[in-house]
C-alpha cells in the first residue's frame, strides 16, 4: 500500500512519454511520401486486490472495493491509421499514388513480398521499376503471372528503357521504346496489382513505409486497381483504389492534431509528476514521524 500511488504516477509518466514519442515520429514524417500516422491507445492497468478473499468477502460486496486500487496506465496498442493522404502532383512518370484503399506489392531483395502505400518508384539500370530501397514493383504480366515490372528492351547488349511510360487509373501499364515506328501500338507491360487486407492495422511495419502481413492482418487479397472483389455472394464489395500516375500520396499526419496531442501529453506528464511528488512527500513525512 502507499507505493501504488508512486507507481501509478510513474506509469502515467512513461505512458505520456510514449505518446510524445509517437507524436514526434508522426511530426518528423509530416513530409514523408505515403507515411501512415500511428496512434497510441492506452488502458488503465490491472486493478490490484490488496486483500484477496480476506474476511470471506463476496464478489460484489462493496467492502471488497476498499481493497481494490488501480495500478496506473499502460500502452495497449499503437494503431496505424490508414487514412488517405493528399495526392500531390509531381510530373514524374514513375510516381504513382493510390486513391482509395490498397497497397502496392513489392518484392524485397530476399524474395519476400512486402506492401507499401509509397509510390515514389524509379527505373534502375536494368530497366526494373524499383522503390528507393531497391524493392521491385510487382505487376501481373501480359502472360498472366505476377512478376517484377521491367520496362526495358535489350538493344545491342544495352538495356534501353521505355521513353514514355503510361499508366491508366485502372493500372494498365504501357509505353513505347525510343526509335519505335511513329503511330505503332504501345507495348503492354501488364497490369498493376494492388493488395488489401481484412485488418490492415494488423500489418507489421518492417521499415520505411514497408509492411509485411501477420497472422493478425490476414493474407493479402489482390486485385486490379478500379475493380472490386467479394468474399462470398451477398458479402460487401472489397474495392481496390484507383492509381494516379505522376502523383504521390502525401503523409496523412495532421500537424495541428499532433501538436495538440503533444501539449495534452505534456500537461498530463506534469500532473503525474506532481502526484508522484506528493506520494513521495507522504512517505517522507511517515519517515520523519520519529525524530
Amino acid at each position: 500500500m502507499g507505493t501504488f500511488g508512486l507507481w501509478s504516477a510513474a506509469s502515467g509518466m512513461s505512458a505520456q512519454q510514449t505518446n510524445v514519442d509517437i507524436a514526434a515520429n508522426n511530426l518528423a514524417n509530416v513530409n514523408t511520401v505515403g507515411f501512415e500516422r500511428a496512434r497510441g491507445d492506452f488502458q488503465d492497468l490491472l486493478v490490484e486486490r490488496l486483500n484477496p478473499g480476506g474476511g470471506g468477502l463476496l464478489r460484489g460486496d462493496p467492502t471488497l472495493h476498499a481493497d481494490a486500487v488501480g495500478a496506473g496506465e499502460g500502452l495497449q496498442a499503437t494503431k496505424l491509421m490508414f487514412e488517405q493522404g493528399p495526392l500531390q502532383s509531381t510530373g514524374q512518370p514513375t510516381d504513382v499514388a493510390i486513391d482509395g484503399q490498397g497497397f502496392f506489392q513489392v518484392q524485397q531483395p530476399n524474395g519476400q513480398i512486402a506492401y507499401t502505400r509509397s509510390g515514389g518508384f524509379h527505373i534502375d539500370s536494368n530497366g526494373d521499376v524499383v522503390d528507393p530501397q531497391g524493392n521491385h514493383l510487382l505487376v501481373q504480366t501480359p502472360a498472366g503471372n505476377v512478376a517484377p515490372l521491367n520496362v526495358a528492351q535489350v538493344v545491342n547488349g544495352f538495356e534501353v528503357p521505355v521513353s514514355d511510360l503510361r499508366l491508366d487509373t485502372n493500372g494498365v501499364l504501357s509505353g513505347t521504346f525510343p526509335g519505335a515506328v511513329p503511330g505503332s501500338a504501345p507495348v503492354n507491360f501488364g497490369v498493376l496489382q494492388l493488395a488489401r487486407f481484412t485488418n490492415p492495422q494488423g500489418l507489421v511495419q518492417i521499415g520505411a513505409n514497408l509492411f509485411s502481413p501477420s497472422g493478425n492482418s490476414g493474407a493479402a487479397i489482390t486485385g486490379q486497381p478500379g475493380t472490386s472483389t467479394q468474399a462470398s455472394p451477398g458479402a460487401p464489395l472489397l474495392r481496390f483504389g484507383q492509381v494516379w500516375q505522376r502523383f504521390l500520396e502525401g503523409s496523412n499526419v495532421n500537424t495541428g492534431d499532433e501538436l495538440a496531442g503533444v501539449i495534452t501529453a505534456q500537461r498530463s506528464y506534469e500532473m503525474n509528476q506532481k502526484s508522484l511528488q506528493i506520494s513521495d512527500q507522504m512517505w517522507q513525512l511517515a519517515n520523519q514521524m520519529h525524530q
Partner: protein
Amino acid sequence: MIKGLYTAASSMLAAMRRQDIISNNLANANTVGFRADDAQFKAFPLLFLQRLFDNNRLENGQLLPSNQVGGINTGLMVDQVTTNFQEGAIRQTTDPLDMAIRDTAGPNSPPAFFAVQTPEGTQFTRSGAFTRNANGELVTDQGFRVLGVGGQPVVVPDGDVKVAANGAITVNNVSAGQLQIVRFANPVALDKPGNTLFAQNAASGPPTAANPADYQIEQNALEQSNVDPVRSMAEMMDNMRLYEMNQKMVQTQDQILNLAVNSIAKV
C-alpha cells in the same frame, strides 16, 4: 493517550490509500473510456467509554447513565471505492471503427456499455476504440471480440463502414450485424478488473439490453476519460494536508508521551 496515536495513524493510512486512488485517476486522465474512482472515508465504529471501579456501576444489571462518559471515535478508514460513471467528453476521430456511447436518457440514467468476450467471460466497456482481427471480427485493442446481439462476434469486412445510432453496422450498405448494448440496474457495484473493462456481479445485477431510445452510438468518436484533472489536483492537495496534520498529531502525542515518561518522574 496511546489510543490517540493510533487514531492519527489510521487517518494517515486512509489518506495514503486515497492518494493511491487519486494518483491512478490522474494517470488515466487521457485513457479512452476510463471511469474515475473515488474513495469514501468512514469513521471507525463509535466506542462508548464508561467509568470503572464505580460502586454503583450496575442497577438491575444495567449501566447507570451517570457512569457513561460518552462516545469516542478511534480512527478513519476507506470504506469503499466507488466508480464515477458520469459521461466523459466525446472527441472526434478519423477512424470509422472508433465508437462512443452517448447516454440520452437523462443525466442520472444508468450508463450503457459495449459487451466484450474476454477469457474471464463477458465483460463490459465504455471504450469504443475498436479494430479488426484477421477474421474481420470487431475486437478491442486487447483482441477481445466485441459482441453483437445474440452474443455472437460482429464480422465487419473492410469497406465503407457505417454505424447507426442504435448500433446497427453496415459495410458498403450491406448489413454486418448489430452491436450488443447493455446496462445494469446498479452499475456502481460493477467490478473493475482493469483495461477499462467492467465485470458483473451479484450486486450489479445481470446485464439487460438497453433501450435504443436511451443511447446513441457515435461513429468516428471516442469517449474520453471522465477524470477532472483540476478537481483531482485539488483533492490531492487537500488529502496531502490531511495526511500532514495527522502526522503532526502523531508527533505531538509522541512528545506528550515523552514528557509523561521521562519528565514527570524527574520531579
